C-alpha cells in the first residue's frame, strides 16, 4: 500500500504541520516504505488477541474532589507568547473573521 501525496497533505493538515511540496513528496515515500514493514501485522490472529485489551487490567484510582490546585511556580504571563488582561491572545479565528465572499 502506498501513501499518496494528497494523503500526506491531508494528514499534515490534520496535524497542523505546514510542509512544503518537496517535503510532502519525501514524506509520502518515507511513510510508504515504513508502512511496508507493518504488513507483517496482517498475519496477527485476531481471534487469539481479541478481547484481551482490558481484561485483568487494574482500573484507575480516583482522587477525592478536593483542592488545592497544583501550584504554578511561574504565572502564565511568564511563559505565554502573548497575554493581555489575563487572557492568552491568538489571531482572530477564521470562523469569526469577516466572511470572505464565497467563490
Amino acid at each position, binding site marked *: 500500500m502506498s501513501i499518496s501525496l494528497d494523503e500526506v497533505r491531508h494528514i499534515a493538515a490534520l496535524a497542523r504541520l505546514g510542509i512544503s511540496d518537496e517535503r510532502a513528496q519525501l514524506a509520502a515515500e518515507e511513510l510508504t516504505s515504513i508502512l511496508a514493514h507493518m504488513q507483517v501485522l496482517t498475519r496477527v490472529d485476531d481471534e487469539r488477541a481479541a478481547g484481551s485489551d482490558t481484561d485483568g487490567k487494574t482500573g484507575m484510582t480516583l482522587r477525592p474532589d478536593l*483542592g488545592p490546585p497544583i501550584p504554578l511556580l511561574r504565572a502564565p504571563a511568564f511563559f505565554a507568547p502573548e497575554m493581555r488582561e489575563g*487572557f*492568552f491572545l491568538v489571531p482572530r479565528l477564521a470562523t469569526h473573521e469577516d466572511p470572505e465572499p464565497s467563490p
Partner: protein
Amino acid sequence: MSVRETVESPRAADSVASGAFEMVVGLEVHVQLLTRTKAFCRCATDFGAPPNTNVCPVCLGLPGALPVLNEHVVDLALRAAIALDCEIHPVSIFARKNYFYPDLPKGYQISQYDRPLATAGRLTTDATGETAASTVRITRVHIEEDAGKSVHDRFAGVSAIDLNRAGVPLIEIVSEPDIRSAAAAGAYLRALKQLLEYLEVSDVNMEEGSLRVDANVSARPVGASTLGTKTELKNLNSFSAVERALDAEFARQCALLGAGQRVMQQTLLWDAGSAAVRPARSKEESHDYRYFPDPDLPPLLVDRARIKRVRNDLPELPAARKARYRETFGLGAYDADVLTAERSLGSYFEEVARAHRDSKTAANWVMGEVRAALNARRLEIDRFPVRPADVAELLDLVASGTLSGTAAKRVFALMAETGDRASQIAAREGLAQVRDDAALREWIEQVIAEHEPEATRCARGERKLLGVLVGFVMKKSKGRADPKRVNQLLAERLGV
C-alpha cells in the same frame, strides 16, 4: 461587505403541507456537573473568576502534566445514569478526541467514546396541556471535560482565551430519535432539567452554560419507518429556542422534500434574531477526530458496591415528591405539580408548611406571592432574602388575626424589599389589625359624616349598603381595621 451563506429554502414551502411529514428528533444534552474541582485536576470550578486564574499544569496542558479523574465526577454521572434507568457498564474507557482549537489546551478533549459509562436508559415525561405522556429512550450517558472559552469581541483583531472552564466535568446525555414534535422536545428537556436539578447533579443553568442542547432533526413521510437525512442544530440558548428552531428547521426540510429536493447533512446554527438557521462554518476541512483510548487513564471500573451506594444515596425524585405532597400535605394535583417543578421551590414550600402547619395556605403563598416576587426580581430562590421561616411567621400573624390578608401582602412586599421580619414591619408600619372599638368608632363616625346619604339610606333599611360603608371604613384605616368588628359596630350604630 458580508456575504452570509443561507441554507436552501425553496419558496414553494408554503404550498407544501408539512402534515405529510413527521418530525424525528434526537437531543444531545451537555450538563456541567456540580463538583468543587475540575474533572482531571484540583482547580476550582467557580464561575466568574478572573481569566486564567483557576488553572494549573494539567488544565493548561503544560508539557509533562497528567490527568487524574475526580471520584465525585463518577458518582454524579452514575447518579444521572441510574435515575435515567441506564445500564451501567462495569468497565468504561476514556478516549482522546483530537482537534486543534485555541481553547482546547491539549489539542484533544478527554471524552468517553465507544465504551461509555452507561447506555440504554429512558426518561418518561408527564402529559401536559400540549403533549401526551411519553417515554424517550436514552442512548448513552458519558463523561467528558469541557473546553475553555474563546472571547472574540474583547480585543480588536485577536481572540482572547480563558481556560478557567477548561477541564470542568460534563456529562453528555444522548437521546434516541424518539421525539416527534417541538413541544415534545420541550417537555423532554424540562423533565430532564427537573430530574438533574433534583439529583443535585448540576445547577442546570442555561445562561451560565451549565446545560447545553444540540438537536438532530430529520423529516420523513408519515408512516415511514426509515429515518430521513438529519441536520444538527446548534446555538440553542433556551428551551424555547430549541422549540422554535425545530419547527423552523422541520418546515425547511418539509419544503425541500415536498419539492422533490434532498436534505443535506450539515450542522446549522440557530439565529434567534432572524428566527432562521444558517450553516456553521466548519472548523476543519473534515472532521476526523482520530479517537483512541487515552493512555494516561486506565479503564474506569465501576463495581456493584459503588452503584449500590450511589443508588442508596439518590435524593427523592419528582414523582415521589409529588405523591408525598398530595399525601402528607393534602395538596391537589395541580399544586403538587407546580411545587415540585423545581426542587428548590418545593423544599422552600416544605419548610414554610412545617413551620406554619396550614399547608394549603403555605402552598398558596409560595405559589402566589413568593413566585411572583422571585419573577419580578429575577432571583433564584436560594438568594431570596425572605426565608421560609419568615413566611411562616407572616402566615402565623394572619392566622392569629394580627394582620389582615391585605396587610399581609403589603408586609410581604416590604419583607422582600428589606429582608426584615414580618412582626418588625407590621409594628413599624402600623399595619397590625386594629380591633380597639374606640378607634374603630372614630373611623365609623367620620365615614358616616362623609357619606351621609348612604348612611341614612342604610339606616332606613337598605342593608346592602352596609357592606359599602364597611369598605369605606377599611379604606380609611388603610386596611388595618378588623372588618368583622367594623361590621358589627356599624350595624349597631345605624340600628340595623
